[in-house]
């Protein structure tokens, strides 16, 4: 089973271009938050890897929910 060890060489299937690191803005419960994610330079679609969703994003969600 293939595992991603880095974000390199991830392709956007529709645009057939390589994803690039880019800043993405998030909103949750009326608060804003931003972090680096992979984004398709052509169509702008964003990829959130598991480590980010269950790490930094989950922590920020918890902090905002507790406010």
């Amino acid at each position, binding site marked *: *089973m*293939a595992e*991603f060890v880095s974000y390199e*060489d*991830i*392709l*956007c*299937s*529709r645009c057939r271009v390589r*994803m690039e690191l880019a800043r*993405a*803005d*998030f*909103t*949750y*419960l*009326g608060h*804003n*938050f931003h972090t680096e*994610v*992979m*984004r*398709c330079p052509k*169509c*702008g*679609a*964003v*990829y*959130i890897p*598991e480590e980010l*969703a*269950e790490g930094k*994003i*989950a922590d*920020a*969600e918890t902090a905002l*929910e*507790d*406010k």
Partner: protein
Amino acid sequence: MDKEKAMAFTSGCFRGEPAVCTNACPFHLDLRSFTEKMQKGRFSSAYRQLRSELIFPETVSLLCSAPCEGVCTRKFLDDSVRIHDLESACFELTKKKEPQVYRLPARAERIAVIGGGLSGLVCALRLAIRKYSVTVYEASGSWGGSLKDHPSWEKMEAEIRTQMSPEKIEFVFDHPVGSPDLPDADAVYVATGASGSTFGLLDGWDPGTLAAAAKGIFVGGKVTGCSDIEACLHGMKAAQQIESYLLSGNMPDHAKKEEAGFCGHYISTEGMEKCPAVLPSGGTYTKEEAAAEAARCLQCDCSACMDACEMLQKYRKDPLRISTEIYQDSVVVAGASMRTIGREVSSCNLCGLCERICPENADAGAAILYSRRDRVSMGIYPPAFHDHWLREMRFAMEDASLVMAGSSGETCEYVFFPGCQLGASDPRYVEKAYASLAEEADLSCGLILSCCGIPARWAGMEELENDIAERLREQLHALGNPKVICACTSCERSLREKLPETEIISLYSVLCGFPKEETPVKTDAAVFDPCASSLDASARQSVRVLAERSGIRVQELAWHGEKARCCGFGGHIQAANPELYEEITRNRISESDLPYVTYCANCRETFASRGKQAMHILDAVYGLDDGTRPPVPINMRRQNMLRLKKDIMEKYTDQTFVIPREAWEDMELQIPEELQKKMARTLISEDTVRKALYTAENGGVRFEKEGVFIASIKEGVVTVWIHYQKNGEGYELVKVYSHRMEIAGGQNG
């Protein structure tokens, strides 16, 4: 938020207040602390506590009738704790009784104490310890007053002498004082004893503060007509009032209230073991006897709800504090301060046990529901906590809903309301039960497949909850207002509250009335009472009868009946607090090694998801399963609801129902067991995963690397991501995860 309303839910809570014995003690002695020290053999420390609170502890103990023993909680179990004997032992076992001397600077203010009896001596010593210049004027030739006639005077005299020895107190004996020539001093305490002169000072005297009308003069002790113990209390109070007068220059306010906070509530002794009082083998206790007797103290402080509830234990907050914080949270100005109780409010099962178990019915759950509703109205309650369940509720009320009057035409005498999750767990539960009612018993019985609205209640959405109740009221009206037969006690609870005009009956009480042959005992099982069953003793009893008739020898769990605890599902806390949810469910399945028999579909599914053998009572009644049936995944619950609707419609009406089939349902998808478990834990439906897969495979946004494809989908307020690979003709799921944050502009660019 209405502060009074928030506080009223838990106003009966008396946790943290002084114990009943302290309440009864004229000196408000902290006897919990005293017995704790005695139990540990710290006799000198116990002695110092008594001395600092009583000044002459042995004398007071000899004079005191021990009202603490009269009120002790242990008297309801066996015998009161023998505080008086413990005090005697403390005096015997303490070697060093000489007072501690504090080197404080001398104060210039002069205080005159008129009368060398107990009250005067107490006041004089207290002020002398504070280094005031104290003179005691005594009419007779020695101090002691009426104590000198006490049979134990010798003992008292020795103690008073020891305690006064390091301090400087000037005594003027054989000096009767007569009005108007009170001695020249900055403050005067008149304590001339039972037959002493009042110098006319009792006119305008305030018994609360001991203040006379004239500035700087206080009157107390037996001259005011009180007892020895009160005289002693007066001496202490006079010292305190004199010092406060000397510091401020003002006499005390008359109207000031006595100390508040002494409630005198009893904790429950239910289930406590008996242990009779230890009697002294000799004149007083030995060390061992004293420690054993002191250990009988229950350290009375109510923890009934906290002992019962994991949520209260986890956050270590008693109901009073919960109400306080709930109100404080409601007035928080965003940015200026933080809310403190959001997670707790979302972590309550709303099972009502805290209220039922509280001797004063303090209701932390009701306060928490109030807060959830308030948070929803303020727009600060995280929607992700309840979104999943609200979507399931909508599905049950719309896609899977059915209302029919049954064979009797337009209206019916009864209507079966199984609740949304019974058929979702196993359609046969509803089909069999309905057949029993409408066919075997030939009742004029209709059927409503829908939801009682409890998910809306738990989500704090009161308006939606009321709308659902109103809709159900209309449905019942159209059926001729039949009696409602509930299979779920949570539905029962909701309907009783929302539709008080409707007669509600438990399915189990009805089934119990039908004749059935007894089955020989096949197995033992513990009945797990659902939390909402506390309001229906008849349902609880009927379930036990049905179980026995079905060959189950019923065993009782420690927490059953009125004390039934929630399986963990209640209040829909799983998304808000998965760790606590895990802990609660783990604790419930560990209560007994026996299989469980319950009568709530959610309890059954919750236990099954933890691998606990758990059957629904209808499994036993209809011989459907022994409780080893695996839990039903989210998407299968929906399928079961639809299948039930179809089967019922085809059997009992002339209508048909076509179960909608979506394109993604036909895709070949393998989901490894680990990921299935994760999906159940994080409330991700297989349907959602399939939708994401279908969209990605049909021209939607998709990423790829080395044969693995990535796609996402927004379901409600949650974004679900999947990683998958092709596997022959179909697909295999590699990863699944979710987040609640939204990407500005959307994840699809």
